[in-house]
């Protein structure tokens, strides 16, 4: 039975002797007999690493999706990850370290996080970012908690343009925090906000671009937040941010985003990267870790996690958040990927995504029965009406080697004509897609809707 134990049988015996014991089970002698497990765990016996690797490879081979050309997005993007980023991000010093509790031997992770924070701040247009949260959904949850504690209110007005999974997660956690949710409906792919202020709102939440790919009117959202004394939380796409106005430039209070696009593979949804940035005034309510620059005893530049009094290990039940382990490695990876892309590369990548998306949108609009769900501007993804249920269309496209997008419900307000239509497909283009991939897409879609 293979393990990673370094102990030889003689060493086991000697150590037990040192403790005045004879058998390994003596170490557990003080456990109540009733809770001692008899007969071992009811799981299979171990196999060698290489056998297990083979077994896992067999499972992996059953994921047909891995071999399809991916036009699915909605927060999980199939971007290129260059070999150099993979090589650097997998250095074992980063991978096998823990939270930088001892800054003197953790300057590597700390400085990388400082760089990550800088880049997130620039992407968001807000001055201060934290060192990561679990994922975009978790970032939204934390943003609502921050808004509630800042405003002393519990009302949340959230656009139906925000990712439905994020909205769902926010609702789940609201069972504990008591936030009251209200959803603002979409018309023509963008949110329709109520007019006039509200006195119960902690936060107004909007996607930019939204889940369906469309660019929202952030000025209206900001106006509503202002009129209500609420915070404006923008759930943004950090890739689109290279070509569209930043959350900060719209005067958002909080930016939350999913950072997977920067160097992390699709990974079936995790581990991903929750990005979180705020206005300077909100820093004492920031959830999670933040790295600050300082000096060491000799005056040398040094980094350390700071404003720790907000955190659970110090403030306990009054902490700004319960988060401890976050997604450091993904944050470090994102910094490296953004370092690779650079100013010009990031812009070019966003531009190519947008170009491909607009090209594809034009081409699919030629397919009989298919039309763009909205005339609203979009960046790199857009929703289609297929005129027939999206599920079977996707299945047919998959047989032609294409993951055609994400079937989605809830684009139009409930009750606005047929309730939740099931013919909506959200399509995403990345810089990986070549002209021939777009052609193949159109062909597959044409065949699928014609059949």
């Amino acid at each position, binding site marked *: 039975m293979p393990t990673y134990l370094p102990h030889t049988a003689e060493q086991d015996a000697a150590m037990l002797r040192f403790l005045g014991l004879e058998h390994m089970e003596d170490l557990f002698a003080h456990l109540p007999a009733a809770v001692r497990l008899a007969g071992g765990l009811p799981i299979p016996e171990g196999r060698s690493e290489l056998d297990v690797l083979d077994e896992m490879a067999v499972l992996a081979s059953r994921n047909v999706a891995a071999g399809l050309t991916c036009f699915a997005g909605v927060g999980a993007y199939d971007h290129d990850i260059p070999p150099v980023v993979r090589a650097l991000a997998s250095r074992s010093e980063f991978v096998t370290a823990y939270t930088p509790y001892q800054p003197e031997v953790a300057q590597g992770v700390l400085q990388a996080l400082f760089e990550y924070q800088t880049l997130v701040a620039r992407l968001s247009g807000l001055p201060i970012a934290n060192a990561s949260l679990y994922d975009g959904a978790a970032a939204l949850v934390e943003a609502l908690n921050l808004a509630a504690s800042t405003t002393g209110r519990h009302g949340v007005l959230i656009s139906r343009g925000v990712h439905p999974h*994020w909205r769902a997660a926010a609702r789940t956690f609201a069972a504990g925090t008591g936030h009251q949710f209200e959803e603002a409906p979409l018309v023509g792919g963008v949110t329709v906000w109520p007019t006039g202020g509200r006195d119960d709102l902690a936060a107004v939440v909007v996607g930019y671009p939204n889940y369906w790919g469309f660019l929202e009117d952030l000025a209206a959202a900001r106006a509503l937040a202002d009129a209500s004394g609420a915070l404006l939380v923008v759930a943004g796409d950090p890739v689109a*941010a290279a070509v569209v106005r930043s959350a900060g430039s719209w005067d958002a209070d909080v930016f939350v985003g999913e950072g997977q696009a920067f160097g992390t593979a699709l990974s079936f949804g995790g581990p991903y990267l929750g990005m979180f940035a705020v206005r300077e005034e909100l820093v004492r309510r920031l959830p999670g870790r933040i790295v600050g620059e300082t000096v060491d005893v000799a005056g040398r530049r040094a980094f350390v996690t700071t404003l720790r009094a907000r955190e659970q290990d110090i403030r306990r039940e009054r902490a700004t958040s319960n988060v401890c382990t976050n997604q450091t490695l993904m944050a470090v990876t994102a910094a490296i990927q953004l370092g690779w892309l650079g100013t010009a590369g990031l812009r070019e990548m966003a531009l190519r995504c947008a170009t491909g998306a607009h090209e594809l949108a034009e081409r699919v609009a030629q397919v009989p029965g298919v039309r763009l769900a909205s005339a609203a501007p979009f960046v790199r993804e857009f929703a289609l009406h297929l005129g027939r249920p999206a599920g079977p269309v996707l299945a047919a496209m998959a047989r032609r080697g294409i993951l055609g997008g994400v079937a989605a419900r809830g684009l139009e307000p409930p009750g606005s004509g047929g309730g939740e239509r099931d013919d909506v497909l959200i399509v995403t283009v990345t810089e990986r897609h070549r002209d021939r991939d777009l052609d193949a897409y159109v062909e597959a879609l044409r065949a699928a809707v014609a059949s």
Partner: protein
Amino acid sequence: MFELSSPGRSAAQLRATGIAPRDLDAMIPSEHRRDDVLETVDLAERDLVGHVTRLSARQYSVDLGAYPLGSCTMKYNPKMADEVAGLAGLAHVHPAADASLTQGWLELLVTLEERLCAITGMAAATLQPAAGAAGELTGLLLMRAYHSARGDARKRVLIPDSAHGTNPASVTLSGYQVTTVPSTERGLVDLEALAARLGDDVAGIMLTNPNTVGLFEEDIETIAELVHGVGGLLYYDGANLNAILGQARPGDMGFDIVHMNLHKTFATPHGGGGPGAGPVAVGESLVDFLPGPRPVRQNDGYAWATPARSIGRVHGWHGNALVLARALAYIETHGAAGLGEVAEHAVLNANWMRRRLAAILPAAYDRPCMHECVVTATALKDATGVRALDVAKSLLDEGFHAPTVYFPLIVDEALMIEPTETESPETLEALAEALERIVARAHSDPESVHAAPQATPVGRVDEARAARTLVATEDMATRAGLR
């Protein structure tokens, strides 16, 4: 990296797409378009590599040596699991792809859930929570849903005073109030105090077992009886599950809800502070409330299903899937007997260390410990002025990572040492000798211990200054005149 940046430089090489370029203006209306260029950083690939590689050389890690950070279980992370996570068939799968296209992933998740249930003695589990703290909050929301479904609006959750900070923080977020239960002088839950705090407004109790001082809560059966007696539930914080793998199971102790830290117990790499994974397993009575969608066996294959009374999603997708895959690989490699040996050696190492250090850094509780031991530097401080923090910093100079210090809060000058099972007796002896040298120096030359570390990339860091003048980005550094 910003110090290496120079506008006009670029590492990026994007593929040729063959798609005709378009003007941004033609795609994004001016009111949405950025009117400036978003400046990030401009590096050549060579300089990026140099920078990041040099950063890595300023970072301690498990691969470099022992990391006896109590409560964190910094054991060896098998490289095999990294290769599993790198399999294209796992890594390149979109989370929204239809279940028919992701059968391998669903099978993997279902298998992991079964293994985790078998290991903890529970009925079913959710794999969504992204770390231990997320698991805690998920578990507490399950607790709340359970009581609510019975029309039972309870208010309080009991937590021992030795508990990890995430426990009370999670309780607050779950809408309950924290009631602290003191520990006895033996380091265990004070049963009388517990009884005194019970009532029918108690939703449950959160415990780690072994607890955060490394001791097994021997009265666990009584505790379970008491809490169950008032209709409360028992929550198991699995951070210390490593100690009892194959030896005892939370389910058999009476726990109703169990979170696990796969990044601790099942050796998935900590990544410098994440990602982790914090699955939550529950007993039969809570299965219906689990977050959804859940992967389930169905006919000949696998599908997603959401439990009838699900509390809802707790993750944007399905959890930290590649962490879950690593953990399953670890479990399958070890198997039943292997996991049992893991616990045995974790406990063996910790007790050996406790005994070995007795003369210089006595254990806070002088009795058999489980996978970690908490020692105290109080006597040392009194004699020499050298504190736990100084000892920790000196250990860095000796080439080791430091233990956890000043946690749990109930032990004065605490050093919490968790050797883990993957450190050899030789390494433990070297660690002990390093501590002996430090303690000897504390007596002979305390100043030198206060002055540690000296051999690290930087010396003691000015934390106060960092908090006083926040410089959290390069741009703040520029504004503060540091660049």
